[in-house]
């Protein structure tokens, strides 16, 4: 179980706070947990992401027992791209939780976040 407790929208220039909960099973063999608020800018429906906007925090699950709770907060800059869907341009934000597991596929959970003006 990877659970995200965080708002689905945030305004530019404000703080984005939340908590991620990771269950015992998902923590097995984990060496790192990354919580990241990532922007994706695409043009013309192509896959290329032109954005370099990313805020992230890394946690070590070494000391975790049954349930790993990760409170996080990111300060969103006033110039951060808003969520936008135009004629050819699109800007989206996602909160990504990635559990890096030794010798196995990563475990992850994603959530769409709307960046408001």
């Amino acid at each position, binding site marked *: 179980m990877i659970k995200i407790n965080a708002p689905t929208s945030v305004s530019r220039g404000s703080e984005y706070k939340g908590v991620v909960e990771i269950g015992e099973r998902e923590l097995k063999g984990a060496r790192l947990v990354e919580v990241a608020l990532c922007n994706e*800018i695409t043009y013309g429906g192509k896959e290329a992401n032109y954005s370099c906007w990313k805020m992230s925090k890394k946690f070590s699950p070494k000391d975790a027992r049954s349930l790993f709770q990760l409170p996080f907060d990111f300060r969103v800059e006033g110039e951060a791209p808003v969520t936008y869907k135009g004629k050819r341009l699109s800007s989206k934000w996602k909160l990504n939780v990635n559990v890096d597991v030794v010798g196995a596929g990563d475990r992850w959970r994603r959530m769409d976040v709307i960046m408001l003006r």
Partner: protein
Amino acid sequence: MVFGLFSSKLSVGLEKRGREYFPGELVKGHLKLSTLKEVKARGVKVQIRCVEWMNPKKDGGKEEEGKEILLWEKEKTLGKAHKYSAGEWKFEFALPKNALPSIIPEPCKKDANEGAGLKWYIRGHMDIPNGIDMHAYKQFFVY
């Protein structure tokens, strides 16, 4: 006439330092012609534009041309057909109250010209008969 233009330059200046604006705000500035000789022009214009743009990084791979889609534009005529010597034209444009916010692909790079985004800019233009038109450009940020 065309050769004389190589010593001429058109530039845009904005009054506000930092070039950061909010919807509904006035964008004030000037278009400046620097020249040693008189420049014969069919007209002088200034435009404010909001565009979606894409300009891929030139990393040695397959080169793709930059693209721009016009979303909003206003134009003002600053001068008609005339012989112009060095000088300045003042202009101002009101941003719409629902102006789209700028989208920049990298933090701290408000003038980025590689990647993709949504940008606002002022474009000055002198229409030169039998010669190369003169252009000037200044980007600004809308919150």
